[in-house]
């Protein structure tokens, strides 16, 4: 676009039309949103059970009393997945790489990696939390952790690593074979090819599914409650047991949502950016 370029009348008219259309779609979106919200609110509020539901699930006083404890518990959830996520990432990539090793000496390792993913992907997380949380301490082995938070983290890591390993593996397999051939033809070893060519490209591709697994891990950090630590769900449970009011559960749910929504928007943003880059290529 040069400095002396003056927009033609035709272009100006086109842009005016586009702006008008943009305004129309914006107001259409606003109006329809308002209508939907009003209809839902009226329907819910008009339902016969609403006053009781409002009192037991959306009780302001109950929320205010419980919130400090629930929030304190939620910090434990945050800590749990902040520790679990990096471990899951590293181990998951490791398992995926082991499954890609072709040399015969690595055969036992490869079998182990396959067994591991097959087994742990199949066990429900809640079961694994019970098995690890009560099973490991029961062994009474020297040096095994007894602290329920650590045990909970171990269970989550075991489960999620098997998922994340598969995500990484599909990313690695999606790299075009010519990229491997090109790298090998330059004299790069298998390890160098993985490190510089395959893994960096694979990671870019699997970021959206990985973030999806992380959102899921954040939620499942509440399962550690089964082992007793005072995280958000457990704190809410305590308050509910005292008052028979369920609002603390809603409060805990809102906290989890508040954390996953930004992650979801970030995933969308990354996906949109990747799509744009591919379009430009």
């Amino acid at each position, binding site marked *: 676009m040069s400095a002396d370029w003056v927009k033609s009348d035709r272009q100006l008219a086109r842009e005016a039309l586009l702006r008008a259309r943009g305004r129309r779609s914006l107001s259409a979106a606003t109006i329809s949103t308002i209508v939907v919200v009003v209809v839902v609110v009226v329907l819910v509020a008009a339902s016969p059970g609403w006053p009781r539901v409002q009192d037991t699930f959306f009780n302001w006083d109950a929320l205010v009393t419980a919130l400090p404890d629930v929030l304190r518990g939620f910090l434990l959830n945050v800590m749990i997945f902040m520790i679990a996520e990096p471990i899951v990432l590293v181990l998951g990539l490791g398992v995926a790489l082991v499954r890609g090793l072709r040399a015969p000496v690595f055969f036992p390792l490869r079998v182990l990696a396959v067994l591991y993913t097959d087994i742990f992907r199949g066990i429900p997380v809640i079961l694994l939390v019970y098995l690890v949380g009560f099973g490991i301490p029961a062994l009474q082995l020297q040096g095994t952790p007894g602290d329920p938070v650590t045990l909970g983290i171990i269970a989550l890591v075991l489960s999620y690593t098997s998922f994340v390993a598969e995500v990484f593996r599909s990313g690695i397999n999606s790299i075009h074979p010519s990229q491997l051939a090109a790298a*090998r033809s330059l004299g790069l070893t298998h390890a160098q090819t993985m490190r510089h060519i395959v893994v960096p490209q694979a990671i870019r591709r699997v970021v959206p599914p990985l973030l999806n697994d992380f959102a899921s891990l954040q939620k499942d950090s509440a399962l550690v409650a089964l082992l007793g630590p005072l995280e958000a769900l457990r704190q809410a449970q305590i308050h509910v047991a005292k008052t028979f009011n369920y609002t603390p559960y809603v409060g805990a749910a809102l906290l989890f949502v508040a954390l996953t929504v930004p992650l979801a928007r970030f995933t969308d943003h990354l996906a949109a950016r990747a799509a744009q880059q591919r379009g430009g290529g």
Partner: protein
Amino acid sequence: MALLTIDGVWKRYRHHNVLRGVDLTVDPHEVVCLIGASGSGKSTLLRCVNLLETVDDGAIYLDDQEITDVRVNPDQIRQRIGIVFQAYNLFPHMTVLDNITLAPRKVHGVPRPQAEAQARDLLARFGLADKSGTYPDRLSGGQQQRVAIIRALATHPRLLLLDEVTSALDPTLVNEVLGIIRELKQSGMTMILATHEMSFARDIADTICFLDQGTLLEHGPPAQIFDAPQNPRTREFLYG
């Protein structure tokens, strides 16, 4: 002394013999063009020379060392042979400069500043000086292929293999790439090219090899192969 000797090389996929005892010698500074119908085994032969495929019989010697010996480390041999494919050459997540300097730095241990200086020299020599920071998907097809050739050159290979490097390009871009190959010939690079560009092959090759269903049917200087082919199959391929 021959730089490369291919001695009775066989390659089969399942029950299909793709190469049936190919013999070929390439002298230093010689440019050899492989021609032949699609599926005749040109790419397979080049991939065997670069040890991207293992041969099923026969041997290949580079500088009198048998490279098909199972005890040699293929990675070390590939450091001495450059290959450029038809497409999908460049690493899309790296800039042009990183694409070119990767092998010198990681395989040959050249320090980054030195590798980059050399890469910039090469880019300038082939008219791509302003592209060093660009990612491959922002380059035209011809530019991408030129970068791929530069990348193969950056490790100072003894031998350069080019597999139909122009066939994914539209005709206006072909000349950019052919220009590079001409210049490489002038600088004395030993090359084997698989190509469908007959006029270019005639112009640049010292030796033309005609492959037919995995057999090297006829080879000789361009004038002989193109103007007075001996074998009826060659004649059929060239004149239809």
